[in-house]
């Protein structure tokens, strides 16, 4: 088991060094901070409809972090693996909140504190849509309703997320 793991990472490492010869891209990667918390150690595993997103409960803080995971999806003619993502944090009551990053206006990806002008909010770069930390849309900005909320559970200390559902508007 651990042998297999090592092999994989060695190959990945090789892959990386080979491609890294292109220097420019590698430099770009090192230079700019990786803002998204991605690529968890664990491969996503399933439990019912909810997927392990590779984030341990204890690593969830009050600061929203972006997680990504993969699910199989059948979309008409195509069956494919799609990447899903969520903003995850603990609210004042210590409850885990997992919000969909898809803006309820026209579907751009929102980011936490995406604009310096609006600290402590989610910001949509497309038409300056804004949401408070709990996902509620800021009145007077384009989004008509709050960010969707993911079904969630914690099992063996790991966070599992399912489908995102709409909430009542502000």
């Amino acid at each position, binding site marked *: 088991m651990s042998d297999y793991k090592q092999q994989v990472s060695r190959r990945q490492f090789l892959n*990386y060094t*080979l*491609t890294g010869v292109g220097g420019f*891209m590698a430099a770009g990667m090192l230079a700019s901070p990786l803002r998204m918390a*991605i690529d968890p150690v664990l491969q996503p595993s399933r439990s019912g409809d909810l997927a392990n997103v590779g984030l341990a409960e204890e690593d969830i803080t009050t600061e929203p972090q972006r997680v990504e995971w993969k699910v199989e999806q059948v979309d008409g003619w195509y069956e494919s693996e799609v990447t899903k993502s969520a903003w995850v944090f603990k609210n004042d009551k210590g409850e885990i909140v997992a919000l969909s990053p898809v803006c309820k*206006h*026209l579907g751009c990806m929102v980011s936490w504190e995406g604009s310096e002008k609006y600290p402590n909010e989610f910001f949509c770069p*497309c038409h300056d849509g804004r949401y408070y930390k709990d996902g509620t849309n800021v009145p007077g900005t384009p989004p008509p309703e709050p960010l969707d909320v993911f079904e969630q559970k914690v099992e063996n200390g790991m966070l599992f997320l399912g489908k995102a559902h709409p909430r009542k508007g502000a």
Partner: protein
Amino acid sequence: MKWKKADVEKYVQAKEYIDTILLPLIPFQFSQDKDIELVASQNDLLHIFASEIEKELAGRVMLLPSYHYISSAAKSEEYLRLNSWIQETEKQPFEHAILLTFDASWKKYEKEITGNLIWLPMIQSESFDSKQIKGLIKNQVEQICEMIRAYWQ
């Protein structure tokens, strides 16, 4: 948004918000055996870039069907045809045209082209699925999105 029915339905209802087109410039060629794979893998990678960018900025950007051309075709003629594509989009209230390419030879015509050319360095790799390559692509996508947002300012 993409050039498909479901998205275009949304587009016609919300035109005033979608002011940017994204157009991948994709060459193909069969005359040089040694370059066939490279040119094809550019196609793979540019599609990944285009769809990732579209995902981030779906509410303001329309991803068009790719502009295809033969690698060796004279850019002095191609750019005219390219401009006519951009002109066609200007019949709608699109204000920004973002062109994505790995082909540095477009650079020479940057001034004549009526859109913003974003040239990307090619990533050479066996597969674009490894964790590291995905990290690189993600990072590049982030930077390109930032660039597009700068055009919006």
